């Protein structure tokens, strides 16, 4: 990664972004929702919720067929369609659709949690009374975890490095960070980084059973917060070396200056109680950006809205920012989007890019009352104008996987 403020031909810049989310499938619609508080929460439509303890989720309302211009490859399902749609928009935004086609020095890095598991669920729902048989399972066995990456490579005829990082709820940040690293090391001329997730019954039941889900509203960092809402979507960013982008006349929307990683090595689903692993990832990202924590203007939190995540993330931010942790803006957009799992990190990075460009911090909506366990400025319920130069985006996942990105303004 190329440190911010240091001239480098390989400094990775974002030249295009695209997304499909529960709160908008265009950048303008998405941003308007972020600053007006338009949430994507609604009764679940993807499957029958009777008998389930929870019924609300954040699904993408736009028909995916409309969102994706390219035909979906034969085995692709909803997750592939979401990913392809986001990629097309990002490539269009970067004016790189023809530039990238057929390149051998282009990479695809895709993050996801469950991949195409929804196809299997739909097959199974047709005859719930009997055990899964080969016909059902073939939908899974024909849709390996790297199907989305393969599909993107096939549609855009890419012959370079193709990577799938199923890093669960941090996968989107992993994808962007790994893509930026490939660019920074000079291994590729352009990279597509994607986080994608389709709304799955499996995840819905799983999080409900873990008592991690809210019955109605997601209230990150608020006292008595009831838990997360699940979401779906995809976010894609195009990453190029600054020099290469400039050479082809592309405009840098932001820079990816830092990518921090750590592992809790503590518990498979729960965060480390002190937030130590999360703090390490954020510190690592800031250090790799060549910055000091005092130079960070805003943190886009993982902020799922669960009691434990928000508390430990707050502790982690105190560890990183010290006394400044109570004053630096730290907000979560998951109150509106829900937790898009594999897509979350990518979509939240795009929210950061828009915040950098528009000098506005998207707030944490649905906030009712401050929680002493979360002694941070979570930018409650109202957007805030601010000159932003360097921002952090945090993502945490099962397996104790922690990832943080440092994104910097283009000008």
């Amino acid at each position: 990664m190329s440190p911010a403020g240091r001239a480098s031909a390989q400094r990775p810049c974002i030249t295009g972004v695209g997304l499909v989310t529960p709160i908008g499938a265009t950048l303008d619609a998405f941003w308007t929702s972020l600053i007006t508080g338009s949430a994507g929460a609604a009764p679940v439509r993807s499957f029958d919720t009777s008998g389930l303890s929870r019924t609300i989720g954040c699904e993408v309302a736009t028909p995916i067929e409309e969102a994706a211009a390219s035909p979906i490859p034969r085995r692709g399902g909803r997750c592939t369609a979401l990913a392809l749609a986001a990629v097309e928009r990002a490539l269009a935004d970067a004016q790189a659709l023809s530039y990238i086609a057929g390149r051998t020095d282009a990479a695809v890095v895709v993050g996801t949690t469950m991949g195409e598991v929804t196809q299997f669920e739909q097959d199974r729902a047709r005859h719930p009374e009997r055990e899964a048989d080969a016909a059902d399972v073939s939908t899974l066995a024909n849709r390996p975890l790297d199907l989305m990456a393969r599909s993107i490579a096939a549609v855009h005829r890419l012959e370079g490095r193709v990577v799938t990082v199923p890093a669960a709820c941090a996968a989107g940040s992993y994808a962007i960070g790994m893509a930026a690293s490939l660019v920074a090391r000079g291994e590729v001329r352009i990279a597509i980084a994607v986080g994608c997730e389709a709304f799955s019954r499996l995840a819905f039941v799983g999080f409900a059973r873990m008592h991690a889900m809210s019955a109605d509203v997601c209230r990150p960092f608020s006292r008595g917060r009831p838990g997360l809402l699940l979401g779906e979507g995809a976010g894609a960013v195009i990453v190029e070396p600054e020099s290469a982008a400039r050479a082809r006349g592309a405009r840098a929307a932001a820079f990816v200056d830092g990518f921090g990683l750590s592992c809790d090595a503590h518990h498979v689903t729960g965060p480390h109680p002190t937030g130590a692993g999360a703090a390490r990832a954020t510190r690592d990202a800031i250090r790799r950006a060549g910055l000091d924590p005092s130079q960070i203007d805003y943190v886009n939190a993982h902020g799922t809205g669960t009691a434990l995540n928000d508390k430990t993330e707050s502790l982690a931010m105190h560890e990183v920012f010290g006394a400044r942790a109570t004053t630096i803006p730290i907000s979560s957009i998951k109150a509106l989007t829900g937790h898009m799992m594999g897509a979350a990190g990518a979509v939240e990075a795009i929210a950061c890019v828009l915040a950098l460009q528009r000098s506005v911090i998207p707030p944490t909506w649905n906030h009712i009352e401050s929680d002493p366990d979360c002694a941070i400025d979570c930018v409650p319920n109202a957007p805030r104008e601010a000159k932003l130069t360097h921002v952090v985006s945090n993502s945490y996942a099962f397996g104790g996987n922690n990832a943080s990105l440092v994104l910097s303004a283009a000008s």
Partner: protein
Amino acid sequence: MTAWAVTGAGLVSVAGSSPEALFDAIASGRARLTRNDSLDVACAPIEGFDPKRHLDRKGLGDLSRTSQLACAAASLLAPALGGVPPAEVGVVLGTAWGSLKTVVAFERAAQVDGPRFVDPFLFAETVANVPAGQIAIVFGWSACNATVSAGSASGLSALCSAIDLLVEERAQVVVAGGADELNPPLLMAWRDEGRLTKEPGSLPCAATRSGPVAGEGACLLAIESLERAAARGARPLARIAAAGSVSAIAGTTGARRAVSALAGTLLQEAGIARDQIDLIVLSANGDKERDTEEALGVMEVFGRGDAAPPLVAPKGTIGETWGAAGPLAAVVALEAMRRGTIPASPLHAMLDPALDGLRFPTEETRGEVRRAMILDGAAGELIAGIVLENGGSDAA
């Protein structure tokens, strides 16, 4: 430029849980492929695998088989990391499938028992990055943790990602490799589609091959810089002279061209000529097209017959183990280097005439095995490869 070394290996396979046992099984020519009569398909399960033999830890029975295999392999590798603080060790695990069996079991439990009665721990094990997370939890390896997925190239892709992480100084040592489990759902689905053979005698590149035999396993390698290995007194098993991957997905690149392009790139990166490769470990698994494309790609670069390096096709012994396959193949190469032996292969006598020119040795060859190339992957997927160089410390 930093040189990267393999300083340890841990594995669980149908042919045993040590490099020696794996190599002996291949050298003996005795395949470990069997039939599952109830499912009417050939397969290579690790019979009697019990993670408790490897790990003294509560709750192992709750883990998916993929997690169990991965943790068992890690336990066999862990002694090689003596002196390295756990916080300086990263993990990269390649897996093609995660745990399909757990996904199916969870869905089944939610349907039959009801969503309120499913085991939340089972849910966690449906998530593909959890096996790598379990390794981190068991051994405290917390520098960084990643999972990569790329079909049968998953394991070699994990080794490539491990080098990326080391280049970026994210860990002192990265434990990298892959794991995949054999399970009835996958067997049934692939059997019904004709993508697996029913014949345990379906051997890679053989004229009579009728498809791959599904296997399982886990294999992890410790990777670090030669400099750091020397500083902690670790003996390098080999130097990683080159590592990379190419996409054979787009259709414009046939697998044959992708294999030859990758092999050429690896030779270039290693700074060696084709006649400096002493052994090639193939990805061939009994799939008609896959074996042919790989063989033709290899022959395009290395030539035919005695002019070409000798070949080994481990999947003829242990089956297609997906995420574990590439790292297991690397262990075969490491063991060949250690012993100075290239095993004879029964495949020479049954070679597909269309692949005439492939050099499967007719008898065991003794002599220095200085460098080996390991390939894995197929058309429609990623094809990954590495070059290992014997005597890592000398090669520095």
